[in-house]
């Protein structure tokens, strides 16, 4: 409502200007419509931002710690750790990069597009430095693999109720 009032005022101002320069009016209306569009786009972006996929890190009950820093989580998911402190082998399980959870994981963990994440892992496994993650088509498939694989760690968008899995608290929060 406030925006509409502002526009009316501007039109009045515009009208006054037009008394002196009759040619400016159509141009001014276009400019104000443009501003209105930008404001609406910003509001939409804020709403969408608020609704972006919230992620949760889960793991098999054996291996990963119950709490981690975000930097540690990112390091593990970039293949920089071969074994957990208890000696269990780290296995990374991710949703495919073309799924909503996979896309959000690429952005929040890797700060890369899905294609770049796949290229990153191709290069790493090719150099022999790390085993590539297991990429899953569905959350249920991901949960099954994590529950059956000691040392597995995964990212999903809801708390898992599968047996043999636990939620990892990251920077003191359940989700990020």
């Amino acid at each position: 409502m406030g925006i509409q009032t502002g526009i009316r005022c501007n039109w009045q101002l515009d009208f006054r200007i037009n008394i002196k320069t009759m040619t400016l009016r159509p141009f001014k209306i276009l400019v104000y419509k443009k501003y209105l569009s930008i404001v609406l786009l910003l509001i939409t972006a804020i709403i969408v931002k608020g609704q972006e996929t919230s992620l949760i890190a889960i793991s098999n009950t054996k291996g990963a710690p119950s709490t981690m820093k975000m930097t540690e989580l990112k390091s593990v998911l970039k293949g920089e750790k071969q074994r957990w402190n208890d000696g269990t082998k780290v296995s990374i399980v991710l949703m495919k990069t073309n799924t909503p959870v996979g896309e959000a994981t690429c952005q929040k963990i890797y700060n890369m597009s899905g294609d770049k994440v796949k290229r990153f892992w191709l290069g790493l496994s090719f150099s022999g430095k790390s085993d590539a993650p297991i990429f899953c088509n569905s959350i249920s498939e991901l949960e099954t693999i994590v529950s059956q694989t000691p040392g597995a760690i995964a990212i999903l968008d809801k708390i898992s109720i599968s047996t043999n899995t636990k939620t990892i608290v990251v920077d003191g929060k359940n989700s990020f």
Partner: protein
Amino acid sequence: MKELKSIAILLIINSFISSSVLHAQNTQIKGFVDALAGVQNDKLSFALGEQDLFITSELSDRFSFLGESVFRFTNTTPTKFSVSIERIVIKYNFSGNHNILVGKHHTPINYWNDTYHHGRVLFPTIFRPLLFDANIIPLHTTGVSLQGHNLGELKFGYDLMIGNGIGSTDVLDNDARKSITAAMHIKPAEGLRLGISWYNDGISKGASGHDGMPVQWAVDQNLFSGSIAYFGNKFEVLAEGTLGINKTDTTGSTRTLASYIYAGFKIREKIVPYVRLDNLTFQEGEIFYDNNNTTAFVGGIRYNINYVTVVKMEYQHQHTARDGDSNRYTMQLAIGF
């Protein structure tokens, strides 16, 4: 005492077997291939690149295997193609990020040789830097190595390797002397890797050099290499240099400096224009390397269609002391499968 030894051996074997049984074997086969078109000396030619088959297998909780075989054009065989084993590495992860590797490796002497191997789709440019073509460094070593990576805050990594030296085959060393490679690197920031290495070998008189020709003197070789690699969201920089010191009883020590610098700038996520400068400087009297001072400029553009399909277009101007100037235009389509 004998019984204790037997029990210990049985326990070790049992631990290997049980870990193998508990973990299903996970084997993946991937490959790379490329096709080229190029203009040199006013002539257009089409060419097949290498077909690289790459196999990884997790044998158990601790053991894994990596194999890389390349099929390439070879004029001297009846079929005009040959197969070569580029890497066979059996890795045992003995603790944390520390591993023992046995087999045929790409010598971890610099970033390029330790990272890109034969995956042309991963190369930032179409061809390797000139220090590879000029056989300055040993590309492969068959032997055993200790490797660690991403240790501590600086993500320190190391490789310590002993292996058959230059002139040996993959099944037999030609002399008693072993090659030694010691390399270390740190990754102090995202995308940044700084590394140094030292390679030492004694090359016997009559042994085959990198180019297959017999060496006329016994050579004591030391290679000191350094590299800076930065691959960020916008900029890419890779600079590497190797100082090669070859010493013989008759000619003394000669020094060779081989280096290159690559820089790329992502104008869009998938489009990267790039340049590379190469330099090879041989000291007068060099007898192990092909003494031919060379400089080259490479300019090109890389378009990543997707993560396993890349098109590159490149111009190269090269000047050698022996042959003068030459120009080459090349286009490459590289894929992974």
